[in-house]
């Protein structure tokens, strides 16, 4: 049982410095020490590479705002990415591949929501279970092999541009605007704030927290399906371990962005900045020729640091 933490009012002004300063420091440091970091091509690269993470971090923000967590997102993304590859290869249609991926992602999301809200299993354990299930299914449908020979229509998603803007960035922007509208301009968004902050109030308002929670996790699963399309298009293949661990980058982006794990406060723009901060960190270390293992460890340190600062702030 947690001690009743005093509910602080969500004060965006108090948060903007945190993540913005972190991003600023990262950009300045890597600009100074990482060769080629500030070139236009590289900045463009960071933004395009951050799009998959954005697709996961947006729904993860909503989930964490409900005092939940989705550890299965990376494994579900791996599975949906494989499905995009397999289905589009079999049917020749990118859209059917995307539909299959979104449906399976949705099914996993609903299963997560059901286990958490109706069965009552704590989120991190329920989604750890579905992580295992998705990971197992990925190995089974792919037989442990890469799926290659992806149709051109899928590959185009990653390389094509719309009015000179790359399609992945268009998709990420549209997703951000949709989530922003959903969270701040609909009644559903208000309920999400209430789910984390004051579940009792939700009940008195005649809303079932159970159904809302299922919807929140279902959105996460569906977005993992959309991200699966981007992943397959980017790698030009489906791979049975492609997305494993990506949920951690998403959680990192949310934590760095100032969404609290314990008080139901969330800030969507913070998450977007957090996504770019994680992208900049990985890209900068990469340019300095540090291996991906160091990048992973650095993201881990970043999360612990962000949570520590969040804890400090809540005690002020």
């Amino acid at each position, binding site marked *: 049982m947690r001690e009743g933490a005093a509910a602080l009012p969500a004060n965006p002004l108090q948060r903007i410095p945190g993540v913005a300063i972190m991003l600023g420091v990262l950009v300045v440091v890597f600009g100074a020490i990482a060769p080629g970091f500030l070139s236009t091509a590289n900045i463009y690269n960071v933004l395009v590479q951050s799009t998959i993470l954005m697709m996961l971090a947006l729904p993860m923000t909503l989930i964490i705002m409900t005092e939940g967590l989705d550890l299965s997102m990376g494994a579900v993304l791996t599975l949906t990415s494989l499905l995009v590859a397999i289905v589009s290869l079999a049917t020749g249609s990118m859209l059917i591949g995307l539909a299959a991926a979104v449906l399976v992602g949705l099914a996993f999301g609903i299963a997560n929501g059901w286990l958490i809200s109706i*069965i009552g*299993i704590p989120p*991190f354990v329920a989604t750890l279970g579905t992580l295992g299930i998705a990971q197992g299914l990925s190995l*089974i449908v792919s037989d*442990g092999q890469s799926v290659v020979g992806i149709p051109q229509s899928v590959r185009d998603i990653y390389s094509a541009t719309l009015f000179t803007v790359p399609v992945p960035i268009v998709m990420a922007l549209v997703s951000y605007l949709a989530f922003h509208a959903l969270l701040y301009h609909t009644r559903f968004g208000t309920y999400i704030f209430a789910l984390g902050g004051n579940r009792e109030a939700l009940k008195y308002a005649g809303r079932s927290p159970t159904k809302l929670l299922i919807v929140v996790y279902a959105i996460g699963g569906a977005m993992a399906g959309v991200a699966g399309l981007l992943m397959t298009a980017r790698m030009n293949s489906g791979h049975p371990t492609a997305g494993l661990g990506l949920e*951690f980058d998403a959680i990192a982006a949310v934590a760095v962005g100032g969404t609290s794990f314990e008080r139901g406060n969330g800030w969507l723009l913070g998450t977007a900045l957090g996504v770019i901060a994680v992208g900049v960190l990985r890209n900068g270390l990469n340019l300095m020729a540090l291996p991906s293992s160091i990048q992973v460890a*650095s993201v881990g340190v970043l999360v*612990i640091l962000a949570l520590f600062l969040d804890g400090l702030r809540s005690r002020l």
Partner: protein
Amino acid sequence: MTDVTKTAIAPLRSFLSEDVIQVFYRLLAAFLICVVLSFLSESFFSLGNILNVLRQASLMFFIASGLTLVVLTAGLDLSVGANVALSACLAGTVIHHSGSATLGVLTGLAAGGAVGLLNGIMVTVLRIPSFIATYGMLWVLNGLTYWYMAGDTIHGFPAAFRQIGSGYLFGLPTPVYLLLLFLAIGTIFAQRTIWGQEIYAIGANPVAARLSGIPVNRRLLLVYAVSGTMAGLASIIFLARLNSAEADIGESLTLPAIAAVLIGGTSLFGGVGTVFGTFVGALILTLVLNGMNLLQVNASWQPLVTGIILVFAVWLDMKTRQRGR
């Protein structure tokens, strides 16, 4: 929550009887799995396979036993698998460079314990929720281990050292003796010592525990350090058994370890469960995975089945406890 509080604070006798029943059901389940498997596969009841099951179960138990204490305090340690990998790689390096198995064992235990202590500090001093702190630690450890190993494998250890993992003593695998030893230590510590009972009390109601004068933070530090040290011990046994260390050996260990704890009837909400239950949980999970092996089910199915059993075990546990209330 009242039943939890009652269970933890009630006199020892009634406390045991409740858990004895819970463990009895699980032993029954393990027995039924044995019966089913003996029908499905002829090789199940061979001596070699039974000893193999015991060896596997003891490896899972070492990680899961320390984890049990963490879960009893309503916490979670998601970093155990990554901890095993790092400790094994460090211990392996030390054995290779110094030639001394003793130094290697000490390195493994110390590395595991240090990681556990760091987890404890994050939970108590920095006040980060345990599942997210240890999840962050998982990736830090993973990154460090992959960076340190740089794709290499350390293999070939002294024969005497390998006996710890793959040897036999009076016809039983060596790890089984360690299993019995730590099962006894763990049970006595949790059930018969004041510190153990305080750990139950912290899990049942941390505020009440603090108000009644239990040094909550110190006990939590201890619990996470023990969990890390047990991961260090497991890393030694793994090293001795596999005769090699690689950066990825921990990846498939965390999910089964957590599953073993939860199958064993330890409640995620803290305050309820036993180390012996975790042993039975490890036995059940090992029997299922062993059965799948004997029936020549592709190893790809293992995470899937473990995930389903994990979720099912938690669901069943919550159902039975609800009815009890």
